[in-house]
């Protein structure tokens, strides 16, 4: 009898643990790796007329989706776990993208339309005589990557520090993030900024000496994207499962309580915001070489709002939910825009409404419903086991 109740308690414990934030399945990682590896092999090894051949277009598309998945995860970390609804995460994504774009721009060298070895085409077009100071060093890959991480990270730190220290929360914070990305969009549209204005940066030739148009490069980019997504996923999971993750959820649910327990909640928020911005920046860096262009449109508030929809569909508060949501919605977008281009925004809006009303936990919540009914049963069984000291579980369920 005692052994039985012990076992039941253990089971309850395991099930409760499973419902703790961040306990998504590692299955996702396996599926992601297997799928991308299979796709890569099918693209490189099979002849083009084989039934299983995967076109390079599909490879690039998949790479793009995975970048979006990473961005969705970044938003989920701060929205799902910390309750900070950022409607401006596209800004960090785009800044990372611009960092990579600048590197790729410098790699063009004298192969541009004007054949100027130092100046990118748009600068020659604008009659600029020399490279602006902030373009120096961007021909070095390591420096460009460093900048593509440092600038969004710094921006997130300063923004977060100012906002969270003043205890700005809720809708006001969302509006501020929206304003941030909108302001950056307007700034990057200006030719004088030196980032290619309206057209942005494009016409890339190669990355680290590899031709960007080659199949092998495309496949390699997809694999790198998958790998980094997996690393980001595992790191984020470790974070949300640590005590830090529990403090973050505590801040989401009862910030005042956490503060009166001695936690400096604003510091937690700032660092989480920076972490999230860095992941978004990495996603942007991987996005640009695969898509081949970065322009101020990426800063558009609409893009950032779309990310929130992906996360909501997948299920906020679960990391795998964000990834799955981003992949599904983007796949749907690709299919839908091919069939009915004008209808997509309506479909997106409808999707958001449906998910909010019927699936507040998203698809991940749908999956978890099964697990929850299981654990309720376990709790009932424990209740039957009975207890006489303190508060019985009977009262708990009442």
């Amino acid at each position, binding site marked *: 009898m005692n052994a039985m109740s012990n076992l039941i*308690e253990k089971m*309850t*414990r395991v099930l*409760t643990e499973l*419902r*703790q*934030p961040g306990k998504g399945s590692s299955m996702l990682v396996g599926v992601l790796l297997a799928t991308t590896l299979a796709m890569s092999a099918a693209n490189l090894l099979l002849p083009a007329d084989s039934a299983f051949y995967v076109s390079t277009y599909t490879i690039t598309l998949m790479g793009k989706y995975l970048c979006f998945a990473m961005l969705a995860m970044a938003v989920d970390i701060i929205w799902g776990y910390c309750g900070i609804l950022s409607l401006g995460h596209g800004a960090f994504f785009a800044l990372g993208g611009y960092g990579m774009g600048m590197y790729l721009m410098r790699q063009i060298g004298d192969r541009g339309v004007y054949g100027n070895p130092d100046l990118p085409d748009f600068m020659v077009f604008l009659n600029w005589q020399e490279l602006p100071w902030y373009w120096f060093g961007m021909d070095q890959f390591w420096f460009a990557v460093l900048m593509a991480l440092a600038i969004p990270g710094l921006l997130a730190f300063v923004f977060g520090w100012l906002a969270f220290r003043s205890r700005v929360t809720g809708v006001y914070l969302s509006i501020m993030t929206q304003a941030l990305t909108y302001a950056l969009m307007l700034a990057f549209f200006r030719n004088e900024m030196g980032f290619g204005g309206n057209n942005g940066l494009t016409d890339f030739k190669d990355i680290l000496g590899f031709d960007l148009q080659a199949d092998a490069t495309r496949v390699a980019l997809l694999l790198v994207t998958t790998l980094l997504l997996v690393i980001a996923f595992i790191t984020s999971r470790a*974070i949300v499962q*640590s*005590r*830090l993750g*529990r*403090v973050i*959820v*505590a801040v*989401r*649910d*009862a910030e*005042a*309580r*956490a*503060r*009166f*327990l*001695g*936690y*400096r*909640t604003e*510091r*937690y928020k700032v*660092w989480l915001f920076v972490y999230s911005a860095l992941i978004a920046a990495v996603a942007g860096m991987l996005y640009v070489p695969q898509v081949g262009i970065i322009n101020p449109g990426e800063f558009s508030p609409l893009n950032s709002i779309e990310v929130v929809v992906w996360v909501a569909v997948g299920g906020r508060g679960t990391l795998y939910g964000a990834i799955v949501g981003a992949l599904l919605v983007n796949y749907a977008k690709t299919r839908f825009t091919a069939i009915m281009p004008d209808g997509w925004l309506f479909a997106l809006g409808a999707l958001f409404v449906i998910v909010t009303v019927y699936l507040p936990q998203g698809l991940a919540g749908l999956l978890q419903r099964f697990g929850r009914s299981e654990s309720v049963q376990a*709790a009932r069984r424990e209740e039957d086991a009975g*207890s006489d*000291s*303190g*508060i*019985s*579980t009977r*009262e*708990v*369920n*009442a």
Partner: protein
Amino acid sequence: MSNLNQFAGQARELLRRDTTWPFLVPRQRSPDVSKQVILYLEGLNVSFDGFKALNDLNLYVNDGELRCLIGANGAGKTTLMDVITGKTRCDSGSAWFGQNIDLLAHDEAEIAQLGIGRKFQKPTVFEAHTVFHNLELSLQGSKGVWSALTASLTSIESDRIDEVLKIIGLQNARFQLAGALSHGQKQWLEIGMLLAAQPRLLLIDEPVAGMTAEEAERTAELLTSLAGKHTVIVVEHDMEFVRSIARTVTVLHQGSVLAEGTMDQVQNNPDVIEVYLGEEA
């Protein structure tokens, strides 16, 4: 010349041997209670848009005491707690924790780490976490971001959690989500969270609001058992409850102390009868 004198004066002030520079004073230290008093509140004034929530309030609480604060709505009870815990800045006055810690110089998080725990009027627990994790998060120790990331539960900490679970009688709800607890259990859990931090001073706002008579009785037992090891200040409306736990009662009225003494003394005090108990009679 006078400028120079002023400067010299300032320099002398700075180099006085019997003082310590503020930045050298450790932020976390235990209160000095050699005079038996743990909380000194003197001449506190707080006003919100002209409404005086606290009006020249003076209150001293002894170490290890169980003190009840009573008073009508708007008497300033919650504002007083806000001032002690650093949530509200007072317009004037002083608040010292022991003889050596100026509470007004610290913010909420620091005050919590100095050993002042506060329970809210409405029970506030981390609903998405289990009872166990609620207590884990409340444990005494470093509350920094990095230490939270690398933290792992030591056996001392887990013993402490077991001990607290026993005190609040929630051993069987250990792995329940806090959100699934009943109202009364949440109140206990919140008190347990304060205990896990091993505070010197507990501020408890309306612990029995919404509790059944039986639960209130258990809460009374819990609070009286805490006195001695901790200093407990309880704010409560329920006179029956106050009578059952109180040794010393302080009556607040319009932001200042109206009367202080045992429950009987207070109830027979003509001022109190007029402004507070009189209304009920």
